């Protein structure tokens, strides 16, 4: 194997500027938290300077308060976990009144994740969010069942996915970036990606969890209160990198945020090379609550060792035809 030092000899870490611009938003580092794995940021503040990480993506909030699903809500799996939280949360109004201002006051970039059970709900969420100051970007979680369409998950159908995205888009200011968060549980993720971009997304977050199930050999029944759950963690990283790769190959100009099993700076680099502009850390936060800071610093070192001065320089680099690499 050959080491490619694309940008001339190694730089020193201090030569690397980790700042990136994602769909128009400046982020001091390309490493954010993933939705549902950082609540609304507050609980991570003992471990992290929230203003210094890329962004805080908040737990997907719905229109009304939600109790979530019965416990058990999680089960550890090899190099990952399954969860079925069921989007427990305070509802959008309480979120905007209480959680968002807290984040904004701390100087964090708040990427607000929203989720709806119908197109009407997405539209209403968009309107309320659109009227609220302090939002850096909106992430639309479309991995929810559509109650008006036999519970079919929005993200699993390009048409419904697009409708959910445009419902939100209509409510928010034109210049507010909208990231559509895709599910890997589809035959063809590129079609869904193209469809939501067409519908007004400014970029894509990939991937949400993939559907899994675990059975408790003692109770002889599914472990999770919700029966199935979402699989996450390093176990699914190769799947997430593949999704980013496929979408970047088809639509190289679309801003992509990679998420799925990021644990180290090398993992973050892998996502960037596949075509992501930034990454999110989910499950690994449970292992290491200071991971967004650590991973950003590790990424700085990885970039520096390879002679790069900015994360943007490596975005999509692995797509170069093999001939381009000196051997």
């Amino acid at each position, binding site marked *: 194997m050959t080491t490619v030092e694309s940008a001339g000899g190694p730089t020193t870490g201090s030569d690397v500027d980790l700042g990136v611009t994602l769909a128009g938003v400046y982020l001091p580092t390309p490493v954010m938290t993933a939705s549902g794995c*950082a609540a609304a940021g507050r609980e991570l503040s003992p471990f992290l300077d929230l203003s210094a990480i890329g962004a805080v993506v908040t737990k997907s909030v719905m229109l009304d308060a939600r109790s979530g699903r019965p416990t058990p809500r999680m089960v550890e799996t090899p190099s990952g976990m399954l969860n079925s939280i069921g989007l427990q949360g305070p509802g959008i109004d309480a979120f905007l009144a209480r959680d968002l201002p807290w984040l904004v006051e701390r100087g964090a970039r708040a990427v607000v994740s929203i989720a709806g*059970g119908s197109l009407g709900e997405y539209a209403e969420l968009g309107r309320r969010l659109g009227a609220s100051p302090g939002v850096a970007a909106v992430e639309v979680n479309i991995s929810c*069942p559509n109650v008006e369409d036999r519970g079919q998950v929005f993200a699993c159908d390009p048409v419904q996915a697009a409708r959910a995205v445009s419902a939100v888009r209509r409510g928010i200011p034109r210049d507010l970036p909208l990231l559509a968060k895709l599910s890997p549980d589809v035959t063809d993720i590129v079609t869904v990606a193209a469809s939501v971009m067409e519908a007004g997304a400014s970029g894509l977050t990939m991937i949400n969890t993939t559907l899994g199930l675990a059975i408790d050999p003692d109770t002889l029944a599914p472990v999770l209160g919700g029966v199935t759950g979402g699989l996450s963690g390093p176990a699914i990283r190769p799947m997430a990198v593949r999704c980013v790769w496929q979408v970047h190959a088809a639509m190289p100009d679309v801003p992509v945020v990679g998420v799925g099993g990021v644990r180290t700076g090398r993992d973050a680099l892998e996502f960037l090379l596949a075509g992501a502009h930034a990454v999110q850390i989910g499950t690994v936060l449970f292992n290491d609550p200071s991971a967004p800071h650590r991973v950003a610093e590790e990424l700085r070192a990885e970039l520096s060792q390879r002679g790069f001065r900015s994360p943007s320089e490596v975005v999509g680099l692995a797509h170069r035809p093999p001939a381009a690499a000196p051997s």
Partner: protein
Amino acid sequence: MNREPLQVRGRVLSVDRAGEYHHLTLVAPGVAERTRPGAFVALAVGGETSAMLLRRAFSIYRAKASGVYGDTVEVVFAVHGSGTAWLADRRAADEVDVVGPLGRPFTLPTEPVPCVLVGGGYGSAPLFALAERLRERGCPVHMVLGGATERRLFGVLEARRSAQTVAVTTEDGSAGTTGRVIDVLPEVLARTGAPVVYACGPMGMLRAVAGLAAEHGVWSQCAVEESMACGVGVCMTCVLPVRDDDGLVRMVRSCVEGPVFRGERVLWDAVGTVPAGTVGAPRVGPGR
């Protein structure tokens, strides 16, 4: 004093057997001075190439700020699955990543009233630090320790040193009274006239203790043990239904709003469900 949790690279000072349990002492700078009785630590297990990502939660047994070996934190644990097996296998000087102290500790009485402390199995571990604080406040301490067998009792000798009276139960009769803590608790409550009972142990025991306390018109403080993915409040896995000050039932995180709850607030029979009427209880099929 700063009570915020820390994340530190701990070092193993010792791992000893204690009956069926393991007693682990970690050097963990800064954690001890922030610790109050009832708090817990979340330990990363298995090392960097482990397939186990989630931290394991353990009640803090003892925390010593600037002891002979620096700041130490001690936990007592049973080997349950792979994570605890890995911990049991640690040797002196090995590294263990520690997050703590976590959770809301036991609330202490403002008056020097007698207190009953009930521990089931390794659940007695956090009660000794509590007993010390209570004694400092002039509260007479009475302990009830139970376990399936003698080897599953923890701290009986220490209890005899730190409490005025100690009642011991084992299910197989290998030590103390044959039976469960709940069988001797009415007598202890009657004898001591304690207005408050503190409990830590399996959920079934807590539920029984909380019920009995309510019957006797006594306050109870129960440290629960729910399956936790993060331990710090960000994942929402560790919830149980709790009646709030406003009378409404909410699914409440046991890692940050617990692990200690007032016994009468927890809907013990509804743990593992979302009882009807809970704030936000589902009307539509939930997403991920």
